[in-house]
């Protein structure tokens, strides 16, 4: 099944024939109507944006298209004929390859294995040709600009890398339709560019692409047409060209253009007043062959950004500060008092909170309710006489669910059932409950829709305003530049340079990153 029948001879790019088409597609999960009678049509040779706020039904639509779920009602037509895939394998065999929202690869297997699982190159004895497989994988991943050891265990790599590997897997097979559900949410500007290249390339070969993203700017850059979903219903389809940002957002949120007023790309205000004494002082953090003497100081009310390329060690830095990663040396001080190293619980007690970038593996407890997930981190602190303080928790949960506009059927709904973005908000709430002095945010707006993103950014701003010290990791340059008062650029696990004041600009940051990268690549070229 390495090459799909369709793949062998992709039809010429005709902008007219829908290659993938749905009619009256509906799906509900119990009482939750995820999709209501959605019509959607993807032309061959177009890049079709699929947008909507969190929980609008984007991923559900994709899962219906690819046989993960079965529709309650409606029909799906692929390449003219009506189809009913009953498992993803069927969809793939038919020529639809998909990159799902949460990374769906096998952490324990090597990068190469993950790329070729199920369609490994064979020797003439019918055995897997490991050497050839690794070579091909290295080539493929390399062509996407990620230089990793393909025999390395995937689970050890950063989320960004994993995302690129998932992309590589999707690329490794010829198909007529490629679907990507928020592929860029954890990618770096540079990788995003690569991804776009790949996408355009596919389009030129007559492949139809579906592209989901909450980074609206990307849509204009890449997509030909856009379909907007709201509360599981189709509300708009049309060309990207000539569509202005405000009216798109209006369509997504279902508000009049007038109501929607968005200045700039983000909701951050300007630089915050800065106290003299740093509340967080990190010096000489060393993590075996990953981090080398990282130091940083954050004052109350200050937002310090961490920039860097994939694997530059941003996530590892914050993890180390939080005590979640065994460090060999270095000290962390909060409010002048030293924090016991390598102990999450002491870090927490000292007032540090970490919003991890990998919400699936390190964030949510899928089987627990939204409520219990939010209250998780404060549970030990709040409980009296070993009992759960239900009242107090209910109040807290109530507040945060309203404040962050978490979209769940009820506080009792299982987090597993929430949409990606809403899960992110739940985690945000979990940490805000702990009333931290220092908040480490690793990709805080990952997969959050415009409305919510604006809220989260405003929130960060506000928290800083109230004297919270924030460390912000974001792979969105604007967010970093506008959100942070200072930016530390990491490279290969060390602070390469710092951008402050008027040097804190997107272009400067890009330059800094590129500079770092160039040095990194000296060896290879």
């Amino acid at each position, binding site marked *: 099944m390495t090459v799909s029948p369709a793949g062998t001879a992709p039809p010429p790019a005709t902008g007219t024939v829908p290659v993938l088409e749905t009619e009256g597609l509906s799906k509900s999960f*119990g009482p939750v109507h995820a999709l209501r009678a959605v019509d959607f049509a993807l032309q061959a040779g177009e890049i079709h944006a699929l947008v909507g706020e969190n929980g609008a039904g984007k991923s559900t639509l994709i899962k219906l298209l690819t046989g993960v779920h079965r529709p309650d009602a409606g029909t799906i037509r692929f390449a003219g004929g009506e189809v009913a895939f009953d498992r993803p394998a069927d969809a793939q065999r038919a020529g639809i390859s998909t990159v799902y929202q949460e990374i769906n690869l096998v952490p324990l297997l090597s990068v190469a294995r993950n790329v070729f699982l199920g369609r490994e190159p064979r020797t003439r004895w019918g055995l897997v040709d490991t050497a050839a497989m690794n070579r091909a994988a290295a080539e493929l991943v390399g062509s996407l600009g990620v230089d990793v050891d393909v025999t390395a265990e995937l689970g050890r790599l950063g989320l960004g890398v994993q995302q690129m590997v998932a992309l590589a897997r999707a690329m490794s097979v010829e198909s007529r339709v490629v679907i990507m559900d928020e592929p860029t949410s954890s990618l770096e500007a540079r990788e995003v560019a690569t991804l776009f290249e790949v996408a355009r390339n596919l389009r030129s070969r007559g492949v139809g692409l579906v592209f989901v993203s909450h980074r609206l700017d990307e849509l204009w850059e890449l997509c030909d047409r856009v379909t907007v979903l709201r509360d599981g219903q189709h509300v708009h389809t049309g060309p990207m060209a000539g569509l202005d940002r405000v009216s798109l957002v209006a369509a997504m949120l279902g508000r009049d253009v007038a109501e929607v007023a968005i200045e700039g790309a983000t909701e951050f205000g300007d630089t915050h007043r800065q106290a003299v004494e740093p509340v967080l002082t990190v010096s000489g953090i060393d993590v075996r062959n990953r981090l080398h003497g990282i130091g940083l100081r954050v004052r109350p009310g200050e937002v310090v950004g961490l920039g860097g390329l994939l694997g530059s060690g941003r996530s590892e830095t914050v993890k180390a500060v939080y005590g979640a990663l065994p460090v060999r040396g270095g000290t962390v001080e909060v409010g002048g008092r030293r924090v016991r190293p390598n102990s999450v*619980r002491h870090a927490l007690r000292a007032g540090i909170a970490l919003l991890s970038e990998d919400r699936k593996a390190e964030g949510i407890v899928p089987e*627990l309710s939204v409520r219990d997930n939010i209250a998780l981190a404060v*549970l030990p602190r709040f409980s009296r006489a070993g009992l759960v303080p239900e009242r107090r928790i209910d109040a807290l949960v109530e507040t945060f669910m309203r404040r962050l506009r978490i979209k769940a*059927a009820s506080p009792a709904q299982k987090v597993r059932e929430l949409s990606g973005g809403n899960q992110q908000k739940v985690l945000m709430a*979990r940490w805000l409950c702990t009333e931290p002095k220092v908040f480490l945010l690793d990709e805080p707006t990952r997969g959050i829709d415009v409305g919510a993103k604006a809220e989260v950014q405003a929130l960060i701003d506000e928290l800083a305003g109230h004297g919270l010290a924030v460390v912000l990791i974001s792979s969105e340059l604007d967010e970093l530049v506008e959100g942070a008062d200072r930016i530390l650029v990491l490279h290969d696990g060390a602070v390469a340079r710092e951008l402050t004041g008027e040097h804190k600009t997107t272009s400067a940051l890009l330059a800094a990153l590129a500079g770092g990268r160039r040095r990194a690549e000296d060896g290879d070229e």
Partner: protein
Amino acid sequence: MSDGTIAPPEPRTRRGLRTDADWIRRNGVYVALALLVLINVAVTDNFVSENTLRLQLIQVTPVLIVALGMALVIGTEGIDLSVGAVMAIAASLIPLYIGYGTGVAVGIAVLAGAISGAVAGILVGRIGVQPIIATLGIMVAGRGLANLFGGEIKSIRDPGVVALGSGSVLGIPYVVLIAAAVAALVWFLVRRSTYGRQLVAIGGNKRAAELAGLPVRRVLVTTYVLCGLLAALAGVLLAARSQASDPTKVGLLVELSAITAVVIGGTPLSGGQVRIAGTIAGALLMQLITATLIFHDIPDSTAQIAQAVIVVAAVYVQLGRRRARR
């Protein structure tokens, strides 16, 4: 269609959230139990009597108590194979210390269970050994220890112990009361206590629980201690009932029946959830299956096959439809 983000979450009742599959999953075991009862009422002589009920309740107690402890362990995505051996250890200690009085003997027996549980807990929670292998080692060694302590089977004549085994108030046997108390306690732990909440969180996503600053190790150790403690209690009750302690035979294969009861009760082995009522129903179901087969004098061979079929059927009722949900 008003906007989803602005409007506060529409209030919905918990019940409203349940899908059919969920409902079946939650209640399948009760359905199966009810079915089996009805069948017996129809075809078994002398079944409809208070005695039958009392008898089943009495006989189920050891397995039930063990199953309750097991449910906690399984909630942490663990498993405990040592329960049978722990029952034997407890039973074997009773005759040794009965000289110091009933209380002391029982106390020591239960303590022994707690200790063996602590060993398991430390191996799993602190050293990070896989639960099944850690408890397997304890199971093998424990059975040996029980035999060393107990030696040959001994009859227990101590009035206190005998009363514990066969006494009753208002027609309700002590053992049943104790089991009920244990069930209530465990239910309370799981539903109301912080410990219980942390337990399911750890079972659901260990890494996330660690990062949320939960005392993962302490909770794990506590859980295995509780499980060992309950197993020991079950051993004591069994000894008290049979007025003897037979270290080689007490609690043989109880680990399997206990786990089966828990799983039939709807608690997934993948952890993150604990169903107490289900576990109780599961244990009763297993008990009633055995009883039914004896009532009708089914030979061993057929009995085992029948048991196999019924168990699978019972679980299918609960989980079989899950896939249909997609």
